[in-house]
C-alpha cells in the first residue's frame, strides 16, 4: 500500500493533471459569472465538441485507424436518448435523472454499434476501414430517417429540453471521460493500444491481444460519442437526421487533426476553438455574408494544415509556430532567471522530462494547433536541445 502511494508520489507530474484543473476552473468561473443564454449555448456546444473530438482521437490518434463516421454514433445516441426520454419522462419527472439514465442507455447502444464497426476493423485496414465507417454513418442516418417512431423526415421532437444549464452536465461528463481516457492511455493498456498503432505485427509478436484492444477502443470511443449524442439531443428541441451528416463527422475529424493526432489537450483546445470561431462568426457577421464564412473557413483550414505539415515549411514552422514563439519568449525569461540563480538550474537536472519525451504515448501539449507526426529524428533534436540548456 505504501509502495503504491510512493509510486504515485514519484510519478506525479503536474502537467499530467493540469487539464483537469483548467477545465474545472473554467467550469467554476462560468457558473459563477452567470452567463447569458448565448454563452451557455456556446459552452454546451463546446462540451459536446470536446467529448466528440477526444473520443474520436482515441480511434484516430491512438489506435491509428481513420474513422469517417463518428457522427453516426452521435446520431444513435441522440435518437435513442430522446426517444427513451420521451417514453420515461413522465414516470420519472426529474430531468437530471432522465438525462443520466438516457446517457447510459444511449451510450451503451452506440457502444454495441461501435463493437460491430470495430469487428470490421479486425478485417479491414486504412482507407478500407475509413470507407466502412463512412458507410456506417450514412446507413445509421438513413435508417433513423425512415423509422416512423423517430418522426421520419420531420425529425424527433424533444418536448423536455434540458435547458440552459446543460453545459454544466456536458463539462462534467467531459471531465469524467478525460479522467478515464487519460488514465487508460497512461496505463499498460494505453501502451498496448499505441503499440498496435505503431506496428500491429510487432505488437502481436509481443503477445498483445490486438483483437481485444481494437474492439475495446472502438467500443469506448463510440460509447462517448453516443453520450455526446444524448446530450446534444437533450439540449435541442428537435432531432434532425440532417445534423449528423458526413460533414459533421468531418468537422469532428478536423478538430482532431488540427489539435494534433494523439494529443488529448490538442483535441480539447481545437474543439473549443473551432466551436467558438463558428459561433462567433455566426453571431458577429451579418447573415448576408455567410457564403463568405464558408470560404474563410475553407481557406483557414487549408492554410493551417499546409503550414503545419508541408515538409518544405518545417523550418518556418519551427521559427514561427505558436509553441515555438512561446518557447522563445519563455526561454529568454528563464535564461535571465538562471543567470541570476545558477543553483536552481542545477537542482532541475534530475527531472526526467527528456525521458518522458521519448515515450510514444505521451500527451504532447506542444502539439496544440499542430498536426505533425514527425519522424523520430525531430523529437531527438528537441531532446538534445533540452539537454543542452540544462
Amino acid at each position: 500500500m505504501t509502495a503504491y502511494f510512493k509510486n504515485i508520489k514519484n510519478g506525479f507530474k503536474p502537467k499530467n493533471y493540469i487539464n483537469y484543473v483548467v477545465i474545472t476552473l473554467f467550469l467554476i468561473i462560468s457558473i459563477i459569472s452567470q452567463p447569458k443564454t448565448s454563452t451557455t449555448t456556446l459552452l454546451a456546444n463546446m462540451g459536446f465538441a470536446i467529448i466528440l473530438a477526444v473520443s474520436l482521437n482515441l480511434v484516430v490518434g491512438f489506435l491509428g485507424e481513420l474513422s469517417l463516421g463518428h457522427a453516426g454514433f452521435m446520431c444513435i445516441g441522440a435518437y435513442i436518448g430522446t426517444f427513451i426520454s420521451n417514453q420515461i419522462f413522465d414516470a420519472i419527472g426529474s430531468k437530471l435523472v432522465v438525462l443520466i439514465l438516457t446517457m447510459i442507455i444511449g451510450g451503451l447502444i452506440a457502444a454495441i454499434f461501435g463493437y460491430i464497426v470495430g469487428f470490421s476493423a479486425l478485417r479491414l485496414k486504412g482507407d478500407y476501414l475509413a470507407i466502412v465507417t463512412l458507410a456506417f454513418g450514412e446507413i445509421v442516418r438513413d435508417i433513423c430517417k425512415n423509422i416512423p417512431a423517430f418522426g421520419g423526415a420531420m425529425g424527433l421532437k424533444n418536448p423536455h429540453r434540458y435547458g440552459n444549464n446543460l453545459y454544466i452536465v456536458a463539462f462534467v461528463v467531459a471531465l469524467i471521460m478525460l479522467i478515464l481516457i487519460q488514465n487508460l492511455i497512461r496505463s499498460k493498456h494505453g501502451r498496448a493500444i499505441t503499440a498496435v498503432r505503431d506496428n500491429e505485427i510487432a505488437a502481436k509478436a509481443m503477445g498483445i491481444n490486438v483483437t481485444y484492444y481494437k474492439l475495446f477502443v472502438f467500443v469506448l470511443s463510440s460509447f462517448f460519442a453516443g453520450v455526446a449524442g444524448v446530450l446534444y439531443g437533450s439540449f435541442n428541441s428537435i432531432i434532425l437526421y440532417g445534423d449528423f451528416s458526413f460533414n459533421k463527422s468531418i468537422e469532428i475529424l478536423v478538430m482532431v487533426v488540427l489539435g494534433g493526432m494523439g494529443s488529448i489537450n490538442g483535441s480539447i483546445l481545437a474543439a473549443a476553438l473551432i466551436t467558438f470561431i463558428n459561433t462567433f462568426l455566426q453571431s458577429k457577421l451579418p447573415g448576408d455574408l455567410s457564403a463568405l464564412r464558408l470560404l474563410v473557413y475553407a481557406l483557414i483550414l487549408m492554410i493551417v494544415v499546409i503550414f503545419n505539415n508541408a515538409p518544405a515549411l518545417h523550418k518556418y514552422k519551427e521559427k514561427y509556430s505558436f509553441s515555438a514563439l512561446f518557447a522563445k519568449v519563455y526561454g529568454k525569461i528563464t535564461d535571465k532567471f538562471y543567470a541570476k540563480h545558477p543553483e536552481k538550474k542545477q537542482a532541475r537536472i534530475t527531472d526526467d522530462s527528456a525521458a518522458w519525451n521519448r515515450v510514444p504515448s505521451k500527451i504532447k501539449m506542444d502539439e496544440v494547433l499542430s498536426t505533425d507526426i514527425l519522424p523520430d529524428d525531430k523529437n531527438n533534436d528537441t531532446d538534445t536541445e533540452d539537454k543542452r540548456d540544462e
Partner: protein
Amino acid sequence: MSTLIEGLSIGSVYALIALGYTMVYGIAKMLNFAHGDIIMVGAYAVLTTMSLCGFPLVAILVAVVVCTLLGIAIEKVAYKPLRGASPLAVLITAIGVSYLLQGIAQLVYGSASRPVTIIDMGNVQIGNSAVRVSSIVTLVVGAILMVILTLFIKMTKTGRAMIAVSEDRGAAELMGINVNGIISITFAIGSALAAAASVCYLFQIPSATPTLGSMPGIKAFTAAVIGGIGSIPGAVIGGVLLGVIENVCKSTPLAPFTTSIEFGLLIVILLVKPTGILGKKRREKV
C-alpha cells in the same frame, strides 16, 4: 429493361468519377475529396458556355479544359506542398479545397439549382419500353473512355511510368521517372475524366447546384472501394454495379432505404473481400 439501361448509364457516370478517384489514389496515395466538386465546376462550365454560345460541343470542350486546368492548379497549390506529409493532413486539405470550391460556386452562381440542357436527344424504343438516347450515349461514352484509359496506361510510356510510380515511388524515382510530373499528369487525367463525368451527369440530371458533386463523389468513392481502390477495371465494375443496384432498388418498395442498401452492400463486399473485388492483396511486412 429500361431500368437496367438507366442503371447502367448512371453507373457509368459513377464509374467515370470512380476512375478519377482510383487513379489519384493509386498513384498519389491520397483520397481526393475535392474530386466531386470538380464535377460541379464542370457542370457550371457547361452551363456558362451554353448560355454564352449555345454549342454543346464547345461547352463540353470548355468543361474538359477548365476541369483539367483546375485539377492541375489544385494539385500544385494544395497537395504538392504536402507531399511526404501524413495522409490525414492531405485529406483535410482536400476537404478544405472542396468547401472552397462550393463556397466560390455559391458566390458566383447562387445556391438555387440552375437548369442545364446540353442537347435533347429524345427516345428510342427497345422492346416495350422507351429508353432515353442520352442514357445510351452516356453508356457508350463511358465505355469508350474506359477503354482509352486502359490502353493509355498499358501502352504509352507515361502510362507505364504511372504504374511504376504507383508500385514503388522511390524505385520509380531512381529509374529516372519524374514523379512530380507523373502525379500532375494523373491529376490532369482524373480531372478531365471528371469533366466527362459531369457532362454525362448533366445528361442524366439536367440541373446544377453548388453541392451537386458531393453525393455522387461519395457514391463514386464507394464504387472505387467496392471494385478495389487503385484498380481501373475495379472502378468500372464498382460504378456499374452501384448504379444498377441503385436503380433497381428505386423501383421496389425498398426505395427509401436505397442508400442503406448501397452502403450495406459495400460493407458486405469488404468483409468478404477486404480489398474490394479486384483489389490487390497487400503483403504485410514486418
